[in-house]
């Protein structure tokens, strides 16, 4: 018989080990369908690993993929810490991307030193503004932000399509629904020569550090955590709960908006309606894998990106479907949830002669 007992206190080492163990467990579990499909399991994983980290090209591809995930992951971390359930990261990402092309594809001309900050600020502001609505609806009328933010995703993407077939359509695109390219001055410069990796990664890393400092060392972060942990006690103590939630909404939406800027101004160069393969939703997974730690979100984003990039490459080499990546990521999330349980509960085996077993444990 197996029994669960709550741990009197949570073990620090376990809290670090649990997500790593979870990732490992997910790979082991994913090996089962892999084996059923008749693929050589170890070779497949070896190919995945080398596909993600095995060369400069692989590594830069993984980091390129990780860049938007870091930012949407951070956006989810900020919101979820304050228990504001922002499911609208995908929409905010597109809003940021839209703002980046609106500002950066010729409407304003300035040197790169001005243009790059300008597109970043525009993208942040667009994402932030998009999240402001659901936050105010929640505060004024108690509207459930899960519903409002989720539905706004579809509104925004349709709006983007409308813009791409209308005012923002590139006249040179021969009728394709895509925006005019971002001007050279507004492009986020590449980090490695002849590779796709761009300085959006630096934006993500700086953002992670800023969010880390925000939560650890600032009054704002303190108030956000207080509101998330116990809004009622925070209100009693005089913390402005509504103001704090608005702040959380703006920062969270803004970070997701930055992810959109990176994809447009760093990677693609122009906006299309299929800019993001679900980076907004994956950001939620990243945040949960990271146990809502801002620095953890960087690692989790790299992990998720590596799984996807590695699986693509493996799939090309031995013909196993790259859907394996979705499977590994989904299993990781499940394992992390189980891991969270393990850090809170002690698992013990109980025999009929429980008293002796108990004594040995103690």
């Amino acid at each position, binding site marked *: 018989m197996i029994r669960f007992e709550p741990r009197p206190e949570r073990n620090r080492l376990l809290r670090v080990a649990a997500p790593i163990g979870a990732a490992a467990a997910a790979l082991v579990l994913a090996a089962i369908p892999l084996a059923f499909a008749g693929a050589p399991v170890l070779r497949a994983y070896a190919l995945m690993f080398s596909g993600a980290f095995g060369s400069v090209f692989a590594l830069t591809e993984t980091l390129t993929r990780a860049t938007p995930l870091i930012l949407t992951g951070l956006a989810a971390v900020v919101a979820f810490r304050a228990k504001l359930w922002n499911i609208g990261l995908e929409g905010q990402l597109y809003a940021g991307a839209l703002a980046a092309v609106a500002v950066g594809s010729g409407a304003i001309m300035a040197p790169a030193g001005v243009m790059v900050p300008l597109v970043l600020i525009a993208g942040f502001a667009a994402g932030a503004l998009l999240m402001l609505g659901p936050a105010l609806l929640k505060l004024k009328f108690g509207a459930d932000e899960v519903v409002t933010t989720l539905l706004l995703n579809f509104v925004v993407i349709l709006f983007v399509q409308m813009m791409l077939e209308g005012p923002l359509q590139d006249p040179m695109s021969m009728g394709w629904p895509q925006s005019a390219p971002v001007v050279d001055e507004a492009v986020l410069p590449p980090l490695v020569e002849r590779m796709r990796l761009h300085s959006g990664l630096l934006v993500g890393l700086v953002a992670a550090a800023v969010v880390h400092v925000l939560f650890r060392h600032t009054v704002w972060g303190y108030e956000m955590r207080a509101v998330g*942990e116990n809004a009622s006690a925070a209100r009693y103590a*005089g913390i402005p709960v509504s103001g704090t939630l608005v702040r959380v909404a703006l920062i969270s939406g803004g970070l997701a908006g930055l992810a959109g800027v990176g994809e447009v101004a760093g990677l693609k160069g122009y906006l299309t309606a299929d800019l993001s393969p679900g980076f907004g939703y994956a950001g939620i997974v990243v945040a949960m894998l990271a146990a809502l730690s801002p620095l953890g979100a960087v690692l989790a984003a790299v992990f998720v990106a590596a799984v996807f990039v590695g699986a693509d490459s493996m799939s090309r080499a031995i013909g196993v479907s790259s859907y394996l990546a979705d499977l590994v990521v989904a299993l990781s999330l499940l394992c992390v949830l189980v891991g969270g349980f393990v850090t809170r509960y002690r698992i013990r085996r109980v025999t009929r002669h429980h008293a002796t077993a108990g004594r040995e444990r103690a």
Partner: protein
Amino acid sequence: MTHGTAAEPAAGEAVLSLRGITKRFGSLVANEAVDLDVRRGEVVALLGENGAGKTTLMNILFGHYVADEGDVLVAGEGGDLQELDAGSPRAALAAGIGMVHQHFTLAENLSGFENIILGTQGLLDLSVSRRGARRKLEALMREAGLDVALDRQVSRLSVGEKQRIEILKALYRDARILVMDEPTAVLTPQEVERLFETLRRLTSGGLSVIFIAHKLSEVLAIADRIVVLRGGRKVGETARSVADRRLIAEMMVGRHVPTTRREPGRRGGVLLELRDVSSGEPSDRGALTEVSLAVAAGEIIGIAGVSGNGQSRLSALVAGLARPRGGVLRLFGSEVSHHDPRRFAAAGVARIPEDRHHDGIIGGMTVAENVVVEEIRAKDYSRWGFLRKKAIRSRAEAAIRGYDVRCQGPDAPARQLSGGNMQKLILARVLDRAPRLVLANQPTRGLDVGAQSEVHRRLLEARARGAGVLLISEDLDELLSLSDRVAVMHGGRLSEAIETERVGRTTLGLMMAGHGREEAA
């Protein structure tokens, strides 16, 4: 396992026996060689301070924990004691052990009836056994004299009604031993009386009750036997008939308990004044109607009343959380224009909330972060928006020392603290700044004797320092021993404050029930 069959043990026979129970958590010994016997039809009070090991012992009985040493024996069908499968809540339930937790475990969105039968029925047999369940329940309610609106949604029931649902839930599962964890902590005096009546009826029908408590007076009213735990060990056991109040109190805390004595004080200028204040929608229960009140420096004003008569609203007004709809609220001599908790706190109002878990402590944050929560924007604890962690830490260390908050340190999560220590933390948060006005709303609810006397000492200390204290409480003993004057709240109206020496318990009781003072006197 129906009630009262011949196979059950006769009255007086042991139905439960815990033998030599020891439980350790790492280096902490929660229970050490505890023996406990419960006989049929008996109420055994398990008395002890927070952290004495009461809850751990009951969790072992219930199979939530496995004891490191010792055995749990429960009377079987034939009346002989049999070892209970350790670590199995299911086995405990099957053996007829039922528990009513302090924090109820009811699904708020279901009816009482649905809560009771939840988990007792298979998925597929819906209608037929529902009718049977209904019949069984109604019989139980008649038998026990429990009266509850079974079909009302639980979220709309009062606390006392929720508790009755919990008791019915246990009885419905054929509980023969009912464990009640601090059942009176959330009840009004009237509801407590009603609970005791129910328990008396049930025990005369053969139910055995383990009553976990730390309020001595209530234990003396209901228990047949009193077992005292301290530091995980059983330190005393006595029949109620020969119980000595003082002795038991000392057994519980292991030291002499100082009795709170109020020295005559010097009344100063008026600090808080409410003139004809109304607040809240008039149709709401708990709204205030034309309340007038003055609290002066150096005095304690007690507010008596059954909960739900407007105390929460009054407390919210004085805490800065609510604003008056009509009338005047003056604080420290000037009319309040900004009803903002942070401003109130900064102006010198110490606010002790009614529900420390809900409104007082932020469980997921550290002890240190909880100490400074009201002052986090003050220059002492942050600068340019950045926290001054060293200052926060040293304030927390001083608070832990000065108020004897038992915890692992300033960085421990506040959630780990016991109820008494949470309250000490709140006292440290609000009283350490030499406030001019103290709002204490149910400051000792759910606390053990030791922590209670500590809270009382601190309130008297504030008064001696010249602060005014507004004490809202349902504990008449507390009000009468601390207050200079007492006012009674009923139906949103507040009586005139009467000098404590000139008011008796019966008068207060009648006024709490809504009689005018002249009638009551």
